[in-house]
């Protein structure tokens, strides 16, 4: 199978072309402000470098920070109606209650509480009221809103109310996008609702972006299927991604960590991905990024996605180096993608980390003559500062005293001089485009998270049922059934509930079905 992996980052758009497990070519292009110009350029370059026609490519996988950035920067977000099926429960906290005010204002702070919702055991809180929902639809229409998020209490246990309400609203608002929370999130009403609302407010943008990706691929002559990567490192096809843009959040760090594992062949390690502005640091366990266990915020909004436990420090190839009265500081400010015009080695006026490395002769980049005036003392102090920052973040990411290796990837890898924190250092081939490799090798997953009453069935039967559901979800998402593995099983008995209620989460992963 010939595949292209693309990672659209804030600074660079990277692309790799792979044949099976072999990387044939890896390239970088500058991310353009319209995103697509950079994607087209990266595609052209990678096809050229591999000397291959676009018609030979089976599939393209894209990792993008587009949607995360839209939320973080509060731009291109649609006015959104949040409808919660719950009454009389949950009335004490309206939708978006804990959102940053500016984000809530940008999408209009439109919300309605309606009847519906389930108890933990599937009983009904109150019956759905079709007239009430049609009344809400009329108000949504009157406000000119075309994106709707529906969240019902305990919808991970029973999706029926969300589906019914979705149909009623779709009939009344045929032009609207409707997001159901049970399609996205897990138990935890506010967090799941937050994810559904963010998804809904990204739907206009996702249509545009997916169309633009499709156009970019067509421009280079590719007409096959393409996929976007999700936060757990697995794939969703373009149509699905258009409906669920929120699932791309945090896919970038996941891709680079998965790519680092693949390129190095090492499954347990600390990964440092050094970009232009920041370094992302996390740890790999069995080839997958370790998951965060606390609620993760995106753009100031609390979610309960399974996100990789990654933290960022302000150190990258474009980080500013400033020699001040208290010694040398590095970052967090960076010239970012403007490095190609603003760094000294490229004829600019700003001293960056890359200039320091080139001045010491450790990298062949730009024009070394332009940094010949830097004193050895400054260079040494700047490099010591960089080394200290790397060591500090690696120590933070270590989860045991075991001497795990450190894999460094990303375009800013030139900043690393030697072993960090005394640990084995791995710079795999194609390190600069590990994130694009991570996108290219991504698999397809299906997940289930629900509560079973073990009074009515055995634990084994419940787990089997959950596994079957997760497998079916993976197949529906495009996985080859014969390659599916159950990669995560977790059952947590729920305190204080009768009938031995147990919450079961299962995740199934398989290879992408092509053809």
């Amino acid at each position, binding site marked *: 199978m010939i595949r292209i992996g693309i990672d659209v980052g804030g600074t660079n758009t990277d692309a790799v072309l792979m044949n099976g497990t072999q990387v044939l070519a890896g390239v970088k292009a500058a991310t353009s402000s319209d995103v697509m110009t950079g994607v087209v350029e990266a595609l052209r370059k990678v096809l050229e470098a591999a000397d291959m026609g676009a018609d030979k490519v089976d599939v393209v996988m894209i990792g993008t920070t587009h949607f995360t950035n839209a939320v973080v920067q509060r731009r291109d977000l649609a006015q959104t109606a949040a409808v919660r099926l719950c009454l009389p*429960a949950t009335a004490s906290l309206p939708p978006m209650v804990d959102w940053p005010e500016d984000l809530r204002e940008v999408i209009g702070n439109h919300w309605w509480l309606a009847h519906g919702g389930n108890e933990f055991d599937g009983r009904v*809180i109150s019956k759905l009221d079709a007239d009430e929902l049609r009344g809400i639809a009329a108000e949504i229409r009157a406000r000119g809103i075309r994106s709707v998020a529906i969240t019902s209490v305990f919808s991970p246990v029973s999706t029926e109310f969300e589906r019914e309400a979705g149909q009623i609203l779709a009939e009344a608002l045929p032009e609207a996008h409707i997001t159901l929370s049970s399609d996205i999130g897990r*138990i935890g009403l506010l967090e799941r609702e937050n994810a559904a609302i963010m998804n809904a407010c990204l739907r206009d943008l996702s249509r545009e972006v997916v169309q633009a990706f499709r156009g970019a691929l067509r421009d280079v002559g590719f007409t096959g299927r393409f996929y976007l990567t999700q936060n757990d490192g697995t794939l969703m096809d373009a149509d699905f991604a258009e409906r669920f843009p929120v699932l791309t959040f945090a896919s970038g760090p996941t891709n680079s960590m998965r790519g680092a594992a693949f390129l190095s062949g090492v499954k347990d390690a600390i990964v440092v991905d050094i970009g232009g502005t920041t370094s992302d640091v996390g740890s790999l*366990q069995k080839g997958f990024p370790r998951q965060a266990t*606390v609620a993760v915020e995106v753009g100031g909004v609390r979610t309960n996605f399974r996100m990789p436990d990654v933290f960022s420090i302000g150190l990258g190839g474009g980080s500013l180096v400033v020699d001040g009265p208290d010694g040398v500081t590095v970052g967090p400010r960076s010239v970012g993608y403007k490095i190609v015009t603003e760094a000294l080695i490229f004829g600019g006026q700003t001293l960056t980390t890359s200039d320091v490395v080139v001045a010491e002769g450790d990298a062949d980049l730009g024009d070394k003559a332009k940094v010949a005036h830097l004193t050895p003392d400054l260079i040494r102090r700047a490099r010591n500062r960089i080394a200290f920052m790397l060591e500090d973040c690696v120590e*933070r990411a270590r989860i045991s005293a075991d001497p795990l290796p450190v894999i460094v990837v990303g375009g800013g890898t030139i900043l690393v001089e030697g072993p960090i924190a005394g640990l084995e250092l791995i710079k795999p081939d194609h390190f600069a485009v590990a994130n694009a490799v991570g996108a290219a090798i991504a698999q397809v997953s299906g997940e289930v998270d629900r509560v079973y009453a073990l009074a009515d069935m055995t634990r084994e039967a419940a787990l089997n049922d959950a596994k079957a559901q997760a497998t079916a979800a993976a197949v529906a998402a495009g996985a080859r059934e014969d390659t599916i593995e159950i990669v995560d099983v977790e059952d947590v008995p729920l305190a*204080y509930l009768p009938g031995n209620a147990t919450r079961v989460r299962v995740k199934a992963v398989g290879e992408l079905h092509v053809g």
Partner: protein
Amino acid sequence: MLDDGRYPLTEADLLPLSIGAALLGTGGGGNPYVGMLRSRELLRKGATVDVLPLDALPDDAWVGEVGGIGAPVVGVEKIEQGEECYRAMRAVEDVAGVKMSALICAEIGGANSMEPVITAAQAGLPVLDGDGMGRAFPEVQMTTFFIYGAKAAPAAIADDKGNTVVFRDVVDMYWLERFARDTSVAMGAAAGLAIAPMRADFVRRTAVPGTMTQALGIGRTILDARKRRLSVVDRIIATTGATLFFTGKVTDIRRELTGGFSRGEAQIAGMGDWQGCDGRIAIQNENLVLWVDGVPVIMVPDLIINLDLETGEPITTEVLRYGQRLAVIGLPVHDLMKTPEAMAVVGPQAFGYPDLDFTPLAFGPIGN
């Protein structure tokens, strides 16, 4: 602060209060996040709540105790209608024929720290600076109030839908726990419970004093340490009298359900000063016992608190996971929880460890 020592709870206090309460939950008690948001909504709409010292009320004033009852996992999904505890409290007033002058927490640890604040905001009452546990415990009867003779009835439980059930005659606190627990499940495992009014002089003698202020202080310490990029674990130890008993990485978690309670055990491989040592924590909703190399070093009712080694975030038993790096700290429980009467209800034997004799922790030095 006014003459009687009261101080108003401001919006800015709610986050530190909830963080401190989560820590005092000793691994259980439920997440105070939802309650923090609910009280914030009320304060933003103009409600006010004062925190009142235990000795500020006349002897014959009546004090109400309210708290949520149900399952923590339900609490994060079926959020309260909002007036569950308030309606239960009013029902108790009606049946008892009294008017409350203030409210008090049953348990400062976890989600129930916020319920009296919410009800107080709705009823226009102050909250007392104290609680019935000084931590979190899994059952209704495990409060200093019941241990020292509070009446179990009349009590009332209310749900999101408008149902209020009054327990008029209940012979003891164990019966109340049983009836309230079963009723709360029928109500969807999320309900508000108010117990019999207590006289202010009784509360003054039996409440664990100062715990609202303590939770606030702990929360402020944590937020301040984060802001100044200091070690949260070090700062907590320096300011609360807690002692560090173990650092390590979770290597195994076993959980099972017996009688509605989540019991389990976490194995922790020692790190840092405890490199090569084996830690083990017994769990029943809260952390019950810490053994290091087979020797019990902290046991219930003293507080066993797991903090994330890097961030200092209190880790509840529900999110304990393989690979987490923990600092396990111990904080002595209040003396009211160490008497023979208290031991019978909340000692190691009461939690099913007949072989453990309670060995109390000493307070660590508090410096700055």
